[in-house]
């Protein structure tokens, strides 16, 4: 069992969730409440990681973060380290490839709120921020929960982008998915099997708990 890789995967998933969830909610709210030309292009761009081969996304991110790119050079000038093949680079890549998982469930949940309710909040004297916190998020909570679970579980299991952007540096960028691949390549079936089972259990429990909570919330709302 590669505990370093497990710890790294959980840390990466935690950071991704902490940073991406607020960004996802903000983007979802903007898309759910705005009508402008070009909205479908932006939605398409956000959904791109769902259909793009992870290696393609990883390749472009590697190029963008590399020492010859302006972003890579800027990061190196500030921190003294490269963005590619670093944990920070991995977090950045993770934020991008998880965007659809963080945005879409929240957007659908916010779109389901009666626009009259949103307007009633404004007429009650609430600011946009208060409307979001006191009316929209409590009503869109199942969508937010789904977004959090999908983002967390997807980060734990992502392989292609992580390999392209992070390489396979133990303790720095080797996640549990890469560790399983390594052990399988080395014919260490016992370790690969244990880690796969752990990942399977973790993913299943997380998704089952989120579905259960969502179901309970929806049933309570239907009763209302």
């Amino acid at each position, binding site marked *: 069992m590669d505990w370093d890789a497990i710890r790294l995967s959980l840390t990466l998933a935690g950071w991704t969730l902490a940073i991406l969830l607020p960004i996802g909610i903000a983007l979802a709210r903007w898309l759910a409440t705005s009508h402008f030309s070009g909205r479908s292009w932006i939605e398409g761009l956000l959904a791109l990681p769902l259909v793009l081969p992870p290696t393609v996304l990883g390749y472009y991110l590697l190029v963008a973060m590399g020492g010859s790119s302006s972003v890579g050079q800027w990061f190196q000038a500030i921190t003294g380290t490269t963005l590619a093949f670093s944990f920070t680079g991995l977090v950045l890549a993770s934020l991008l490839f998880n965007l659809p998982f963080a945005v879409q469930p929240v957007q659908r949940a916010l779109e389901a709120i*009666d626009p*009259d*309710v949103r*307007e*009633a*909040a*404004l*007429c*009650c*004297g*609430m*600011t946009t921020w*208060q409307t979001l916190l*006191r*009316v929209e998020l*409590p*009503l869109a909570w199942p969508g937010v929960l789904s977004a959090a679970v999908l983002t967390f579980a997807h980060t734990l299991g992502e392989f292609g982008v992580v390999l392209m952007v992070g390489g396979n540096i133990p303790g720095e960028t080797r996640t549990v998915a890469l560790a399983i691949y390594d052990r399988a390549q080395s014919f260490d079936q016992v370790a690969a099997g244990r880690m796969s089972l752990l990942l399977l259990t973790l993913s299943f429990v997380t998704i089952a708990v989120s579905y259960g909570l969502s179901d309970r919330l929806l049933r309570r*709302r239907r*009763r*209302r």
Partner: protein
Amino acid sequence: MSLLVHVRHDRPPLNLRLEIPEGAITSVVGPSGSGKTSTLRAIAGLWAPSSGRVAFGQQVWYDTANGIRLAPRDRSIGVVPQRYALFPHLTALGNVEAALLHLPRATRRAQAEAALTRAHVAGLEGRYPHELSGGQQQRVAVARAIVREPRVLLLDEPFSSVDRSTRKHLYAELKRLHGELGCTVMLVTHDLDEAALLSSYLCLIRRGRLVQAGPTQGVLARPESAEAARLLDHANIFRAVVSGHDWDRRQTVLDWHGIRLVTPLDDRFAPGQRMDWVINHTEVTPADASGPASGDNLVRATIRDIVTLGDDLHVRLAPGAAPAFTLHMKVSRHAVPHQAVAPGLPLTVRLTPSAIVTMTPGDDTETGDRHPE
């Protein structure tokens, strides 16, 4: 301190100028799609028309010429939406408290409870919206709208989702609340009876334009145009030519397709000019029922058809001199002998002279003359 509203927009088409008098209940009445709700939303700050101005006394809430657009929370308004839009995840008390976030938490509850008591829903504080009846939901929505003590209360068809008996109670509640609060109320409705019962000022709008505005009884009694008369649900709208004025009897004499009609004096029109006229169907009566068939405004007609609704007969008549047109009469079925009214029978009716309202001629399509049935 009246509420002045001037909105112009292309889609939906709006070009409306309203003055809502202070402290009164003003009804804005019009058919679906006439721009009633858009106007209300523009006043509330929920929608920005492409140009216009909304001002309450000296306070300018919206003015495209000067780049002013106050947020809804900065306008002294309370809104009761058509379907109430209560927050489904909050109790009745929570819904009302949600309008008091500007106050310290400790004082919110007392004020919210007072508003619920005022709206006659005390005792239901802990119930969620789905646990309330339509009338109770409406009262909670009213409590939420008035708890901030707004100067202007905007009601968007607030009685459309409740049954008839509840509606009557709610009418009384609104009148009582208005008496207590004294705020300016704008009631958007398509129900003329509701507007007549509740409001002291009436605005008729159609296709985004103001058709007529004024004190309710005045507008109901004297539509200024055929368009207004149609909005007031009149069926007897016709066009005639002025024959002359009888200054002694203070009457105007009309020629309606060869039929001589006298109306109250209207010297805005010179002899020979065309004008529209309207009469309520209850003011068309069988001549025999009101005495011998002689005198003014007698019209010989043939009964086209009859519909009995409750105790009333709704009779459609084809005037002998103008058979292409339809004259509508509503009369109690006890007021006429049963055998005297049947389709195809002749009937002489009298049009009450004082009940004929003369109007400026509008588009031809607005008059009953152009739409014979």
